[in-house]
């Protein structure tokens, strides 16, 4: 079923000169893992905000078209109505941490959704374990490093068990190892049925797990398709999007007349392709 249905949607922030989003058409089916990428300022964060209703209810401005999330039109349904369906992890995690310690932070969302206290306790303990937050349990969110805050924000959003997790560069402050751990958790949740929409610059980390990559530039969607197709397009280089090194090598070789067949996303895939071509 179509979980996210964005139809001819445009948005201009109040006081801005130009449109942040220009006639966006985007449908996301339940269970997909979408990666949104594009140069700085292209509208990625604004797009995330349309999914949970912050646009237009918190970020006011001019809108045209419609955004329908799980059957609810965001023109009418407000942020609290959408909260159980769409969970948003902010680009700056400090902006969404509101309580005095990590335990309280994780419980805050489900408490407000009226979840049973025993269930809340289970979710909090389970997420603390999964996201390695035990040593931070009593700590004040604003006393933590950026990376720790990011893990807490992700946990707090997951505590509400949303149908779609929208995450705006959720691993940007994390070291590469921690980033991989988080992305693995997100990937596993996706395999269990949670729809994922991730904004990410570091495509080498997410290209393999994504079912679809959406490229944005200056408020519009300029490419939308499976990872291997989109990353092989020339527009990626034209607009300044960083593709995995293995894919870059594939493209350079293709220009020289060497075609490896499939588009590799990792170094290991590249090596396997070279081996196959050589043995032919």
């Amino acid at each position: 079923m179509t979980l996210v249905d964005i139809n001819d949607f445009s948005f201009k922030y109040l006081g801005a000169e130009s449109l942040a989003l220009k006639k966006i058409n985007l449908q996301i089916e339940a269970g997909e893992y979408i990666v949104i990428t594009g140069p700085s300022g292209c509208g990625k964060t604004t797009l995330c905000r349309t999914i949970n209703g912050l646009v237009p209810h918190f970020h006011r401005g001019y809108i045209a078209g419609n955004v329908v999330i799980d059957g609810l039109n965001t023109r009418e349904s407000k942020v609290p109505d959408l909260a159980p369906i769409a969970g948003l992890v902010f680009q700056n995690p400090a902006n969404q941490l509101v309580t005095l310690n990590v335990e309280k932070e994780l419980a805050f969302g489900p408490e407000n959704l009226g979840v049973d206290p025993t269930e809340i306790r289970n979710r909090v303990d389970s997420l603390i374990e999964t996201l390695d937050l035990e040593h931070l349990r009593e700590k004040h969110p604003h006393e933590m490093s950026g990376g720790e805050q990011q893990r807490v924000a992700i946990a707090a959003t997951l505590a509400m068990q949303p149908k779609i997790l929208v995450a705006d560069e959720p691993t940007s402050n994390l070291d590469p190892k921690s980033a991989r751990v988080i992305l693995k958790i997100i990937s596993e949740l996706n395999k269990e049925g949670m729809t994922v929409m991730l904004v990410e610059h570091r495509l080498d980390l997410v290209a393999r797990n994504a079912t679809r990559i959406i490229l944005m530039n200056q408020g519009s969607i300029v490419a939308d398709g499976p990872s291997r197709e989109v990353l092989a397009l020339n527009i990626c280089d034209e607009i300044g999007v960083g593709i995995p090194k293995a894919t870059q090598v594939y493209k350079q070789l293709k220009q020289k007349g060497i075609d490896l067949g499939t588009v590799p996303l990792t170094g290991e895939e590249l090596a396997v392709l070279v081996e196959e071509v050589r043995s032919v």
Partner: protein
Amino acid sequence: MGSNGAGKTTLVKHINGLIRPNNGRVILDGTDTKYMSVAEIARVVGLVWQNPDHQLFLDSIKKEVTFGLKNIGFSDADANDMCNRTLVRLGLEGFAERSPFSLSGGERKRVALASVLATEPRVLALDEPTIGQDAKQKKKLIELLKELNTRGCTVICITHDIEFVIENFPRTIAMADGKIIADGSTHSVLTNDVVLERCSLTEPELTIAARSLNKRFSQVSNRLTLLSELEDAITELLGGI
């Protein structure tokens, strides 16, 4: 470099005096910083924070960038001139009258950088400057840092981005649990498995590719670090065109 919570930001905040040591000394250009105020140190050391929103506080980018300049004695005319030049360098021309908070996250990072760069500090410290930057902006940043360094500026960069470091920085200091565990040439520090492990780093993509190829074709070196080297190695394997 170092894992989350290793102490990188804490260490760098000692360089501009925001944090003072409990033991030991921080000596800046021959003077013990305990005799210097943060304001005095600011004339020499510029720090760009990990979260730009922590250092942006005025309602226009022009005010933001000229603030530091006017505080160190620039005339209005000179400050405006320097502001314009800095904005152009960072791809922010045309944004002078806009509020920083109307910009995207990546753009705000560049405004914070502009406000520090404008004062032309002799030591430039950047805390995670590549976060949220697209590939094009990273490239421009590195060109800018190299240019500054050529002109004598000392550049200190906190980052997780191992490729960014391997491709551009000759010296790497690795931290873990509040200590420095390695300090030397980038190549030797970042090919040390113990360092990678303790700093929660992963190998650069190209090294992974090189190792995968080396597993199958021993003639390919597993220590290749440049894209062009990898390309050449594969072209040779496939017998050229």
